[in-house]
């Protein structure tokens, strides 16, 4: 009798999505790329696109290459002080044990 195949239906613990690691990836890139920048409506479309790509590549190479990834970048212009005029909310229908969100 031939040997059977083994299939992985859940990631091994070391490959599970780790929000803390991903958060740090994001912080690093945002800090590097946006520090000292002003909101420029001409540049912001390309900037947000390239930020998303960078973040996606960095997360992929941080040990999450078996995951499907969706990266969304939102850049808002700050006019005036304090008042929060943008509310961002995300909700997912997914597998609690393996998927993650950051």
């Amino acid at each position, binding site marked *: 009798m031939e040997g059977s195949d083994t299939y992985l239906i859940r990631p091994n613990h070391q490959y599970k999505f780790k929000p803390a690691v991903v958060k740090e990836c994001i912080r690093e890139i945002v800090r590097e790329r946006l520090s000292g920048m002003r909101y420029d409506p001409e540049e912001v479309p390309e900037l947000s696109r390239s930020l998303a790509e960078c973040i996606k590549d960095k997360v992929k190479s941080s040990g999450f290459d078996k995951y*499907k990834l969706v990266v969304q*970048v939102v*850049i*808002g212009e700050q006019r005036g002080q304090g008042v929060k005029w943008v509310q961002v909310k*995300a909700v997912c229908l997914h597998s609690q044990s393996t998927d993650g969100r950051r």
Partner: protein
Amino acid sequence: MLGSHIGGTIMDEYQTEEETAFVVEEVSKIIKESVEAAIGGNAYQHSRVNQWSTSVVEQSLSQLSKLGKPFKYIVTCIIMQKNGAGLQTACTCFWDNSTDGSCTVRWENKSMYCIVSVFGLAI
């Protein structure tokens, strides 16, 4: 997948392509209805945006799951007051182009914008 025995034949029912695909028009309609229900007819109110955005995503997700399609969904909602400031969103995905999809709906009234994105990832 269901199997049923009829007479002497065994028939298998598989979900048709239509039933397992991410249909942008269908998703878009659900989002528009969810946004209208949550904030339609309202003027921007700082104290209510949290509750509004929660309603939008939860209502959207609930209606999406009722479609019974084999997808994991991610719904994001951005509510922004109209005050002249700019907002740019971008997204990139690493997924299966043949099965996964996304849809973004932009809604506005006199006092605010609402941008909702749905990402469907085939299971």
